[in-house]
Structures are given as C-alpha cells and as structure tokens.
C-alpha cells in the first residue's frame, strides 16, 4: 500500500511537469495552429533563467584576510555574496530561496522571448504546412540549445531548493500510517502543488475573464471573432507569450529535481508531444489530464512488482499508451472533432 502511494506521489511531480509543458504546447496549437517543436527549449530556457538568477545572487566579493593563513601559508579568502553584504539577513534569505525567487525574473523574460519568437518567426509560418512548422521550430530549438550550451557549458548545473524544503515530508502520517513509513521530498510535493496552481490560474484566466473568453471564442472560430472587430492576432501573440511563461515556470521550478543541462528540453518535448496527442490536440483539459495520467502510469510501471511481470515496461509505457490511444481513439482522450484531421 505505501509503495503504491509512493509511486503515485512520484508520478504526480513528473506528471506536473508534463502537464505544464503540454498545456503550453496546446495553447500555442489551439490558438495559433502552430506545432511548436521549440517548446521544450522554452522549458530549458526557464530552467536556465533560474540558474542565472542563482549565479547573480551568489556573485561574491572576495576579501583577503592577512591575519589568518591557510595551511599553505597564503592569506585566507573570505567570500561573501554581494547581496549578503548589502542586505544582510534578507540577502541570505534570497540566496537560499533563489529558485522560487527566480520566478520574478522568469515571467518577464519568458514573456519577452515568447512574443519575440512569435512576432519574429512563427507568424510567418501560419499558412505553411505543419511539416514546415515542425522543421523550423526544430531548427530554432537546436539554435537555442547551442546558445545555452555556449554560455553555461554542457554539464548539468545542480540547483538546491530552499533549506526549509530540503528534507522529506512524512506523508504517511497524513494517511494514518505509522510515522516514517512513507516519506517524500518536500520540494517534489511543492512542485506538484505549484503545477496545479499554475494550471488553475491559466484555466481561470481563460474561463472567467472577458479577455480569456475572447481567446476561447477565437480558438473556436477565429474568423467570426475577427469580423466582430477584435484584433484576435494580437491576443494570440499574448497567448503564445503565456505558453512560454508556463513552460519557463515549469523549467525553473524543476531545477532542484533535475539539474538542468542544455538538452533537457528535447527529452521533455518528445514526451510532452506524446502527452498532447494522447490528451487530444487542441484540448487544454486533455493535455493536463494526459500529463498527470502518463506521469503516474510511468512511475507505477517502474515498480519492481510490475517489472517482474512485464520486463522493460517502464521504458516504453508512455509510447505504448500513445499507440493504444491513437489507434482506439484517433482524436485522443478529450480531443474535439475537426482539429488536425486534414
């Protein structure tokens, strides 16, 4: 029972990442009709914004202390981050909380990147075939990756969660199990909650604001909305920016779980595309549902009991599910009729 619960929790945080990326992909697809292979790169860029924020915050001032000597006879170097000298305790807090703090930087940076990407490149591909869109964004993803690789190197850069969340939560106690039987890292729980929160905000935004209503109407029938005198294109550009933000946030908050490297985006992208297709192209709830579903199924399939019956199942489960879903429900789990059927 507790092994089962543990795997379920494991699936939730991974599923959260899938769901967030798939949500952004679906937003871009549902509004602009763009199949964006560079979306994984946006996830990666978000993670590296967090890395940069951390680097900025930990810029150190080096002071040589001549009174104390190292065993090699040289003066001891005292390193203090600038923020600590300037802000004292608050500075120390900022350094510790650099990952959540980076959200403040991620939002504007990703919005900018998203809007520039849409205005500069993707706009010219609305009327081109999907194959062309896939190819040009694939090229863009390679370019973004290589730029990041040039500046940050090829090795993963570990980030740490705030000290407060460094340990593990005794989740089992909540379910009435004896203490210590089911412990789970705090940060992964936080990540799941964060993913749920972001998803809720995006949905609420689309569901309960006039702005969101217009966007939804545009997804249904952009021509009619255009005839009503609304500049739907500009809104769709903003939606693309929002999709970029969601991907960036997903990446930034994921850094303590998976040390970011320049090609992390591609790995997630392939899976997220499968998630989108399983959920149904163009369906936002489908993307979220499929994200969590596949995340949880993936972690169940890596249980030793399951692997004993079906060896290797953990390696292929997501793709296997995709094949089954596509063959039995061509539109995915919650896909609408008439989307991507030509």
């Amino acid at each position, binding site marked *: 029972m507790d092994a089962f619960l543990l795997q379920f929790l494991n699936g939730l945080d991974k599923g959260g990442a899938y769901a967030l990326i798939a949500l952004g992909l679906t937003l871009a697809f549902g509004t602009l009709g763009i199949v964006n292979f560079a979306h994984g790169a946006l996830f990666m860029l978000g993670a590296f914004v967090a890395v940069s924020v951390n680097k900025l915050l930990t810029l150190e001032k080096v002071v040589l202390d001549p009174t104390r000597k190292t065993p090699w006879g040289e003066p001891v170097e005292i390193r203090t981050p600038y923020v600590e000298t300037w802000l004292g305790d608050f500075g120390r807090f900022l350094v510790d909380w650099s990952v959540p703090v980076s959200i403040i930087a991620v939002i504007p940076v990703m919005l900018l990147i998203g809007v520039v990407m849409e205005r500069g490149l993707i706009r010219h591909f609305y009327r081109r075939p999907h194959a062309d869109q896939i190819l040009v964004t694939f*090229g863009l993803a*390679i370019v973004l990756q290589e730029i990041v690789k040039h500046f940050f190197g090829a090795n993963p850069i570990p980030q740490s969660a705030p000290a407060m969340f460094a340990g593990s939560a005794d989740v089992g106690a909540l379910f009435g199990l004896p203490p210590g039987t089911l412990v789970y890292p705090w940060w992964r729980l936080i990540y799941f909650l964060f993913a749920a929160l972001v998803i809720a905000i995006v949905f609420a935004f689309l569901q309960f604001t006039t702005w969101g209503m217009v966007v939804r109407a545009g997804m249904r029938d952009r021509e009619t909305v255009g005839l009503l005198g609304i500049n739907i294109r500009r809104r769709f550009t903003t939606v693309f920016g929002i999709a970029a933000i969601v991907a960036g946030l997903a990446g930034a908050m994921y850094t303590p779980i998976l040390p970011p490297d320049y090609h992390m985006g591609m790995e997630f992208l392939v899976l997220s595309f499968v998630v989108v297709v399983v959920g149904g192209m163009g369906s936002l709830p489908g993307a979220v549902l499929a994200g969590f579903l596949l995340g949880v199924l993936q972690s169940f399939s890596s249980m030793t009991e399951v692997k004993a019956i079906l060896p290797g199942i953990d390696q292929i489960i997501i*793709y296997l599910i*995709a094949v089954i879903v596509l063959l039995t429900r061509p539109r995915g789990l919650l896909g609408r009729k008439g989307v991507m059927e030509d």
Partner: protein
Amino acid sequence: MFGKTARQDWIFLAIFAAFVLSMPVTLAPIGAGYPDLLQKFAIYGLFAIGFNILFGLTGYLSFGHAAFLGVGSYAAVWVFKLLTVNAVPAVIFAVLVAGLFAAAIGYVSLRRAGIYFSILTLAFAQMSYNLAYSVLTPLTNGETGLQVQLLAQGPVTDYINQDVRILDQWLGVKEVGVPSPSLFGIEMSGWPGFYFAAVMLIAGMFIAQRIFRSSFGMMLRAIKSNQTRLNYTGVNPRPYLLAAFVISGMYAGLAGALLAVIDPLAGAERMQWTASGEVVLMTILGGVGTLLGPFLGAALIKYAENIFSAINEKILHATFAWLPDGLQNAVVEIAGLFVGKGWHLTLGLLFMLIVIFLPGGLMEGFERLMRLFRRRGGAHAEREG
C-alpha cells in the same frame, strides 16, 4: 536536369554513377577525398533517398526512421557473428529484417495521417531505442553495443561474446584475431568499403528513379496531393502507403547494414530520435520529392559536420590574420561560436534558413538560379537579334 524521357533518365543515372565513383578524385580539392567521409556520403545518401520515397512522394513525415537503420545494423552484425563475415549475406538479411520491421510498424502507424502519423512512428522508434538499451540487451548488448568477437573455443554459452560463424567454419576460412567484414576476401574498410557503398548507392538511386517514374510512384504522388479524391475514385491508398513505407524502411536497413559492414559495431544511439531528425533535415535541405536532392543534402550535412567541427581557434586566427588585432579577436570570438563543438548551431541556423527561404531545398535553389540565367540569356538574345 530531370528529363521526362527514358533516354534522359539513363543519361542522368550515368552522370550520377560517374560522379559518385569519381568522388575520391573530384572531391579531393575541397578536402573530402578520403574514404571515411565519402563512405558516410554514400550511406547517408542512401538513407535519405529511401526516406524521400516515403516523405517526398506521399508527404507522410516519419519521425522514427532511424529505428530501421538501427535494426539493419544489428541484423548485419548478427550475421557476421553467426554465419560469415562476408558482406553480401549480411546486407541481404539486414534489408529483409528492416523490411519486416517496417511492415509491422507501418501497418499500425499508417492508420493515422499527419502529425498523428509522425507521433506514432516517433513512439515506435523511441520504444525500440529504449528496449534496445534495457530488456533486449541479450540481442543488442546494451550500451556497449554489439560487435564481432573472437571465435568460440568449445561449447558456446554466450553468443554476445563468442562467435560461431557457421558458414565460414564450414568453408574452412582461416581467422586470425577478430575478423573484419569482407567481400569475398577484400576487406571492407577504407576505399573498398567506399566503393561497395557507392555501388549500393547507385543501385539505390536506380531503384528510386524507377519508382519515381512508375505508375506506383504516380499513385504515391496522388496520395500526397489529394487523398480524399483518390478515395472517391475507388482507390484504397493504404496498400500503396504501406509499400512505400516498407521500401523506405528497407533503404534505411541497407544503410544500417553498410554502416555495420564498414565498422562492425552496432549501438542503440543510431535509433534515437535525433538520428531520425537528421535524415529529415538531409532530405529537406536537398529538396523534398526530388531524386538528387536527398543525396546532396546528406552529403552537404556530413561534409559540413566534418569541416566545421574540425575548425578550431588556431585555424580561425590564421584565417583572419589580415585583420587588425582587436577586430581579429572579435571576429574569431564570434566565428568560434559556429565551428568546432558549436557546429550544431550552424546546423540549426542552416536548417531554419532553408525552411524559411528555400522550402524546396537546394534543388529549388538550383532551379531558381537556372531560371535566372535562362531569362538573362533570353534577354541577351533579344537584344542581339
């Protein structure tokens, strides 16, 4: 360039064959005249030509073609291990196995079109890749990769590390150390390896040309241009699609087998989706749906990979030595981004530029140039006349 008559087709093929066979001489001035690189030209050219039969003619974009390449490599190495180091049985067996594998995957994937087809093929390729690394280790030797080993002495317990080569033993072929693949005694590395691959490439080009010109090829083009209309005329496109899928899978299998012939080591990374992406890129770069384009694209990418990744800072400094010092450093700094380890950046940019400005690839570029010249020539003639 592309004749419509049979005569022109033969001329094209003859010129192509002459060019391919003379590559060691003609490409020497641009620094490509050595076997390792030319082998890659031929092998990836074949891979791309085969991919183009599916993507170029039917418009079905497969994102999992590298799986067939990988399967071909594994099949060929197994033949080397179990039967003989002669290349011919290995190539034939690899093509057959890749064809069967493609038939199975194609049968399922072709039930969907468009992006769903791409995702299905991607899913199958990723499954093959992941399984090759994990459960199928007894067949693939996992991360180490499958390779030709010493002959077994005594009873065989472990077929991965002990080879039997029944056919060679039966024929009484003597082996010293680990043998390398050969063609009736000619060792298949270096130049002989290139010529073997080149002959296969020419044969592959010939078959592709026949397909392009046949009524079967016409049917595939019809599927690309309007499948609904084809349905209404009472044609079921699925068998044609499956045939195209299997044929292009066999080309990939052949390319994989040739890779194994030249260097008998098969690893799973050949099946990864980045490898599938590479062949798409080659085809697009050269020109989708053209005969010559995919080969040109493959050759150009392999050439660029080789040249760009070999350039280092020293060479750059030497190249820009005529610039003033400060400027020189700046130029070298910027150019350094695109070469050496950063050559993927060049690749990505090239990719984007081609898709944005030249969707028809290099072949379209040539055609535009030709048209430009012809128009200018025409104007001249008018003025003179």
